[in-house]
């Protein structure tokens, strides 16, 4: 066993990781204790690797672990201002109360525990544009509570589900290909006589949905409604959700709160450029490079919601859309402006995008979203491209 007084320290470290959002239950704590038996505790890198291999289980958690390790096992000099310690400027995602409690427990300044969220955590898709990028917290309070409730109820009760696709997994069925395994097994029970043929056919699964929402200034009036829409779908479908104005942010995990208001609050906290300018091409490029391979498997349907007011380069938007359309089962563009009378998709962005989308639909009210629902439900009965 490791030194006796190491164990309580390790327990405290596991609690810090837990508070910072990592999974650090008893099972992992036990593993960590066992692992340390084999490690020379004086070699800091090995000690760090051992704990990391136990407590981390996805790449996204590595920076959080490293920050927690630095703070807990190699605390910075409490007299030094936070920013200047090299390699220790990473943020630890703790709530302010927890951060204070931990700072007290470890004898640190609160500022050394929980620095302002580093901007690099949500890297700008382009550094050039938008000196006036509006990094302000957008309050979701504009819609009345009654309206919100109505919209939500309508969306949750909507009678459609996303269309299914055939998977490669087979299950027993009365029609379909012959299931040799079961048929032969049955035959053996009857002295090798093939009395019955069993069949099986591919299981069906709902297609995953990927929602990419424009939340820039020109879309401001619709953002809240669209987030309610996203939350309602996330409750019942396999949904990956992203928002962008000048940069792309994944909000899938933020939408997971069962409670709408808490989900919206965490989205508004996690997204730093609500109502900034728009660079659709950059955002889609970001999506294509960082996320497409991870979320477009299994025949996903991609829905882009934007009015097409784009400050970027239309030719870039075109090439990113072509790429995206090739990796998605179907590419749908929702434009809230399409609902307004006399609207023609003449904005540069929209004109560039239109030829490359499979569908172009309105999204200005619940009725329009229901049209979308019907389309999603009927996807396989229509031929794509």
């Amino acid at each position: 066993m490791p030194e006796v007084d190491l164990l309580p320290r390790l327990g405290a470290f596991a609690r810090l990781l837990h508070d910072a959002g990592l999974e650090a239950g008893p099972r992992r704590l036990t593993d960590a204790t066992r692992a340390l038996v084999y490690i020379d505790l004086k070699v800091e890198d090995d000690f760090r690797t051992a704990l990391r291999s136990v407590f981390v289980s996805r790449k996204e958690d590595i920076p959080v672990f490293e920050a927690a390790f630095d703070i807990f096992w190699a605390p910075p000099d409490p007299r030094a201002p936070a920013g200047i310690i090299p390699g220790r400027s990473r943020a630890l995602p703790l709530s302010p109360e927890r951060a204070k409690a931990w700072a007290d427990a470890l004898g640190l300044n609160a500022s050394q525990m929980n620095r302002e969220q580093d901007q690099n955590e949500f890297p700008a898709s382009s550094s050039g544009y938008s000196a006036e990028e509006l990094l302000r917290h957008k309050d979701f309070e504009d819609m009345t509570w009654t309206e919100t409730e109505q919209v939500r109820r309508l969306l949750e009760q909507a009678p459609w589900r996303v269309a299914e696709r055939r998977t490669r997994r087979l299950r027993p069925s009365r029609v379909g290909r012959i299931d040799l395994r079961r048929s032969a097994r049955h035959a053996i029970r009857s002295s090798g006589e093939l009395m019955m043929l069993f069949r099986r056919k591919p299981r069906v699964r709902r297609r995953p949905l990927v929602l990419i929402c424009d939340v820039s200034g020109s879309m401001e009036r619709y953002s809240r409604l669209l987030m309610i829409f996203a939350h309602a779908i996330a409750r019942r479908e396999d949904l990956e959700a992203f928002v962008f104005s000048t940069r792309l942010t994944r909000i899938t995990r933020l939408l997971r709160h069962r409670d709408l208001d808490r989900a919206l609050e965490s989205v508004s906290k996690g997204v730093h450029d609500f109502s900034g300018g728009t660079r659709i091409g950059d955002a889609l490029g970001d999506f294509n490079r960082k996320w497409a391979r991870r979320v477009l498997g299994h025949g996903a349907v991609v829905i882009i919601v934007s009015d097409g007011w784009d400050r970027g380069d239309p030719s870039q938007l075109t090439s990113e859309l072509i790429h995206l359309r090739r990796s998605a089962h179907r590419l749908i563009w929702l434009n809230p402006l399409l609902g307004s009378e006399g609207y023609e998709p003449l904005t540069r962005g929209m004109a560039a995008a239109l030829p490359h989308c499979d569908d172009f639909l309105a999204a200005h009210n619940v009725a329009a979203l229901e049209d979308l629902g019907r389309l999603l439900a009927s996807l396989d009965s229509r031929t794509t491209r």
Partner: protein
Amino acid sequence: MSTPATIEDVERRLRERRYIGDRSLATSIFLALKLQKPLFIEGEAGVGKTEAAKVMAEVLGARLIRLQCYEGIDLAHAVYEWNYPRQLLHIRLLGETEDRRAAEREIFSSEFLLRRPLLDAIDNDDPTPPVLLIDEIDRSDEEFEAFLLELLSDFQVSIPEIGTIRARQVPFVVITSNRTREVHDALKRRCLYHWIDYPDLDKEVEIVRARAPEAADGLAREVAALVQGLRGMDLYKVPGVAETLDWARSLAALGATRIDAGLVSATMGAALKYQEDLDRVREQVPALVDKAKRA
């Protein structure tokens, strides 16, 4: 061959087999061996995840059992299947006269069992526990993950007709994922986790020298520097170490000992796999080559 006694021992043995990895990888492997837990390795495509498992088999002097995952993979492909044609033939030959219950016992014996990789990994007579590589688990589906979860917690498989088969010795399990989807936390919780990053320039040069010795020293360094430059660009598919090696070998096969803009343009298909990426890089080849030569 004995199991490594220290982290340094793992490092040295990997190196002897021309696998150049970080100390942190050696530490994770060492702990996985000691704690008898599966090692879950993630990383971008082509950073040497599968290779790590293969080399570990050599290091341990163990047999490598590889299970390549795909969508819809099921127990019949991963664990076991009865050899139905043989069973049918056998029961026919016995005819009606034989005792049916004895006949059934006979045809549901291990002689008629087709052993797939997972059964093979826990039930074998190997002198050294085998290395089980479950490759690209992100390609399989949730049903298969749920099954693996069970297998990896108890290292046992139950076959209704035979009973439960328990591992006599726990295999060294390596699971790799390219992160095309998120693997369930419950499965990862059973494992130690390791993320393999792209190597830095010096390490990559070392890898090229070890694994593509036909490339001259100057060439090895320039190709590695070139790929490092490409990784900094905005590409759909960033080249991995596997691509660096392919590229170095291609250039060596052409008799090149240094790179120049013409050679690079002619051979960059070894590293870039998308037309858009090739177009984007093509304009910048002279600048990239220049930078690589100075690195």
